[in-house]
């Protein structure tokens, strides 16, 4: 059995570890959970719940933060 699954991450297809939680996904991307907001299949996942939510094949995950803007 393949140990990775494909998800859509920030609009791009990406292979991630099967059964990974969102918190593990951030760690694998070297992202600080305090510095990003996570949207999982269009629902915001609060910081404290990131370790409870696992990604499944075909899921859409968006990782956003604040950038310069007017």
């Amino acid at each position: 059995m393949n140990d990775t699954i494909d998800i859509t991450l920030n609009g791009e297809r990406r292979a991630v570890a099967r059964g990974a939680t969102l918190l593990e996904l951030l760690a694998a991307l070297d992202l600080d959970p305090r510095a990003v907001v996570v949207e999982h299949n269009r629902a915001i996942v609060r910081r404290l719940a990131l370790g409870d939510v696992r990604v499944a094949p075909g899921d859409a995950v968006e990782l956003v933060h604040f950038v310069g803007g007017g």
Partner: protein
Amino acid sequence: MATAVETLRDTPFAIGGRTFHSRLLVGTGKYSDNETMVRAIEASGAEMVTVAVRRVDLDRTKQAGVLYHLDPKRYFLLANTAGCATAEDAVRYARLAREAGFNEFIKLEVIGDQETLLPDVQGLLEAAQLLVRDGFKVLAYTNEDLVTALRLEDAGCAAVMPLASPIGSGLGLLNPYSVRIIKRRLKVPVVVDAGVGTASDACITMEQGVDGILMNTALAAAQDPVAMAHAMHLAVEAGRTAYLAGRMPRREVAVPSSPLEGMLD
């Protein structure tokens, strides 16, 4: 709040239950580098600073988030929904922004036309209603239309932000009459957002009696953004003080300043 002049007393500038000392709000976009941005914001004296919500660059080819450079304890962050073309998108961005955990204020933009970046007032009102119901303090970017401004106030917006001229145009205050009448008719703060190009524009805008100005490109695209930020700081104070002082009436004929009596034969 005391102005430089002892006899003039200004009312505090409060939005959504928070009081700010500076009537100048600034953006963080389009600066050539982050150090210039930070120094310009400091020079502007602004306390409220806008930011945008965007995807994290997973390949790290772009610079880190703006909070890496700007201390969120020092500045009050006002997230925007820039780039959103529908009420649904704007609500989605606003909720993501709130989740970042700083505050429940949102600068609401729903753009209806890509060339002029003018607002889609129908989508704007719809999004404002949804966000107010959801507990947001909404600062709505709109055009200089009184009826839309009144409806945004009715929808529960914390502030209404008519444009001086299109975003990034630097054309200055094109319709002072409309901005004045919006200010006169609304109870919530009116902050002019977008279009100011240089210090005189900011001064003339504040002379209309509006509560504040939000600007970004006028600073970021100046030859010297830090010096322009300082100039804008002075211009906003000058314009506000002139408004409070009350200007002399305009006359189409000359009126001598020196006495007519006592002239030699």
